[in-house]
């Protein structure tokens, strides 16, 4: 890190003092250029994430969850074009800054873990060295202390015998252990925001529980915030403070987790819950969501769920459609909520 760029006043702490949320995504609209036309992947996506909170971003594949995360991390594909919107981190608009200035922020203040940790790790580099790489790039830890710090990072994610595991290669570790290493890497520079993109997909249910408990414990210990991207509504319900439901590039509903699962207001949220095996008492009670995700290369009506919605009425197709506030922390993108 160059001469105390942001360390003097930790930006997250400074922001908290002013009541600014840690992360605000504000009317983010972006599309992808494809041979078949422009895919309107995100439309007016907005949410906030406060310090020490876990926000679940839930939806089917193709709904725009990962694209949103990639936009925050500046990992978007060349074909992506951000049309409008802001991504404010501690009040700073990330999209308005120069890339090089932001590189420092992302990585140290914002870290990300991916699904399939085994492929995300370097296959022939000792995991301890991979953690040191992060420390070298994103922290002021002097070279002589990096090994010690890396072992501490492994210890923090409850890896038994961390000094020995420091020497291990990814193929010598189980999938759950690899994900812990990924988390250790992500946390080694003490980020204030962790983006976890399907962190337990492909892991056993027992390992999943251990990893999710760990993430929750780390949030409580450090006050870090987590944006948890998942297709598993039951898991989001157990671990998240708030849930934002995405459908076809829209955030259709945002609410406290328990409220969203108990009293969903958007018809899509309700359908998603009814299609989740964890919530169904019997196979008869399990209900599929009618229709498919719309083709986002085509012009879309204001409500992108309208063609799948049983409650669709003529005024649903009247623009503009804005999110309605149902409660203090409950937003829904629907003219006729449940």
């Amino acid at each position, binding site marked *: 890190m160059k001469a105390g760029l942001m360390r003097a006043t930790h930006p997250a702490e400074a922001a908290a003092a002013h009541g600014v949320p840690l992360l605000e995504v504000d009317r983010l609209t972006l599309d992808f250029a494809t041979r078949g036309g422009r895919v309107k992947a995100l439309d007016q996506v907005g949410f906030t994430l406060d310090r020490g909170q876990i926000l679940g971003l839930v939806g089917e594949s193709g709904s725009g969850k990962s694209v949103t995360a990639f936009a925050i991390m500046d990992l978007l594909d060349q074909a992506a074009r951000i049309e409008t919107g802001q991504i404010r981190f501690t009040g700073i608009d990330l999209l308005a800054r120069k890339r090089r200035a932001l590189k420092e922020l992302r990585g140290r203040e914002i870290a990300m873990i991916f699904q399939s940790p085994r492929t995300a790790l370097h296959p022939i580099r000792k995991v301890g060295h991979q953690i040191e790489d992060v420390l070298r790039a994103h922290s002021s830890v002097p070279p002589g202390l990096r090994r010690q710090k890396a072992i501490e990072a492994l210890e923090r994610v409850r890896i038994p015998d961390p000094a020995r595991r420091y020497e291990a290669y990814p193929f010598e570790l189980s999938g759950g252990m690899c994900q812990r290493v990924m988390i250790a890497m992500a946390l080694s520079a003490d980020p204030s925001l962790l983006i976890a993109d399907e962190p337990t997909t492909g892991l*056993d*249910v027992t390992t999943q529980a251990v990893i999710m408990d760990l993430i929750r414990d780390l949030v409580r210990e450090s006050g870090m915030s987590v944006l948890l991207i998942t297709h598993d509504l039951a898991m989001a319900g157990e671990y998240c403070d708030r849930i934002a439901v995405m459908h076809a590039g829209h955030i259709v509903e945002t609410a406290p987790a328990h409220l969203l699962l108990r009293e969903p207001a958007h018809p899509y949220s309700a359908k998603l819950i009814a*299609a989740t095996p964890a919530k169904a008492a019997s196979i008869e009670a399990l209900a599929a969501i009618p229709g498919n995700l719309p083709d986002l290369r085509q012009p879309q009506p204001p409500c992108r769920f309208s063609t799948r919605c049983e409650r669709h009425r003529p005024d649903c197709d009247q623009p503009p459609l804005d999110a309605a506030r149902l409660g203090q922390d409950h937003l829904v993108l629907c003219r006729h909520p449940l």
Partner: protein
Amino acid sequence: MSDAPLLSALGLTKFFKVGGREGGLLHAVDHVDLSIGRGESIGLVGESGCGKSTLARVLAHLTPPSAGQLRFEGVDIGQIPERRFASRPERARIQMVFQDPTESLNPHLTVEGAILDPIRRLLPGMSAANAAARVDEVLDLVGLPLAFKPRYPHQLSGGQRARVGIARAIAVEPALLILDEPTSALDVSVQAVILKLLADLRTRLGMSYLFVSHDLNVVRLLCQRVVVMYLGKVIESGPVERIFAHPRHPYTRALLAAVPDPARRDTRPPRLAGSPSSPVNPDPRVCRFYGRCPIGTERCAEDMPNLRPIGAEHLVACHYAEQQKGLAA
């Protein structure tokens, strides 16, 4: 259900030789007893590496058992070499639906070709006209329009491919369908459709299911009986409602406690630490769960518990199954 089970396995075992200086035997499936009744739906659960997929493949006779008996409709099929089995009438009677419909469909075959292929191979007596009629019939059963017949897998969605995988398997009218994680690659909305389709097909066609899954909720919805495996051994089996409400083996308890549940917010169920011990040359005297088990006594390290009845149709392999009654599930 008639008296004789559709399929019964006795001491079914599958070992694999593994390398290393001393060499060793990987106990993938270790003396498993299992019976599947006519029309019954059984869920086979456990962590990855516990041997559930190997057991499914041995039961489907895609790979021969190392030891033990495998009887299907009264015939000891375990003795038939798998080359010869491929042309036996029993081959059509046991069919398999594989995990990833994208990987398991031949990309060069159309939907029609993929469904015709097993009919031609396994029902050689069937006329071309009858075979064509059968294709239309099963497409209808799985809810695919006939217009899809000339399409190739890459022109289909994941859910449509899953339907083709099911259509292909049921085209030869099996009595037993072995499903290896058939919905794990699908989105939740598509999964719901396929699960309902599978439940519907079973009642309509009277098939038996062996449903291999890591998703306990799916097993709860689709199966009547559940079999829990740990390191090659069946450690608990019984009716679904009973096992889910009153699991007796400490591993089953941990497995159920790990299933995400919003109602369990902010509680701290005990978690399983560590990973399973090695399946290579395990000590035959030691309980496979010993070392990871929260109970684990000296007795568990000296005397491997066998499956024993603990209630109606409820079997468990734990010395301390009765004593855990007071523990929260």
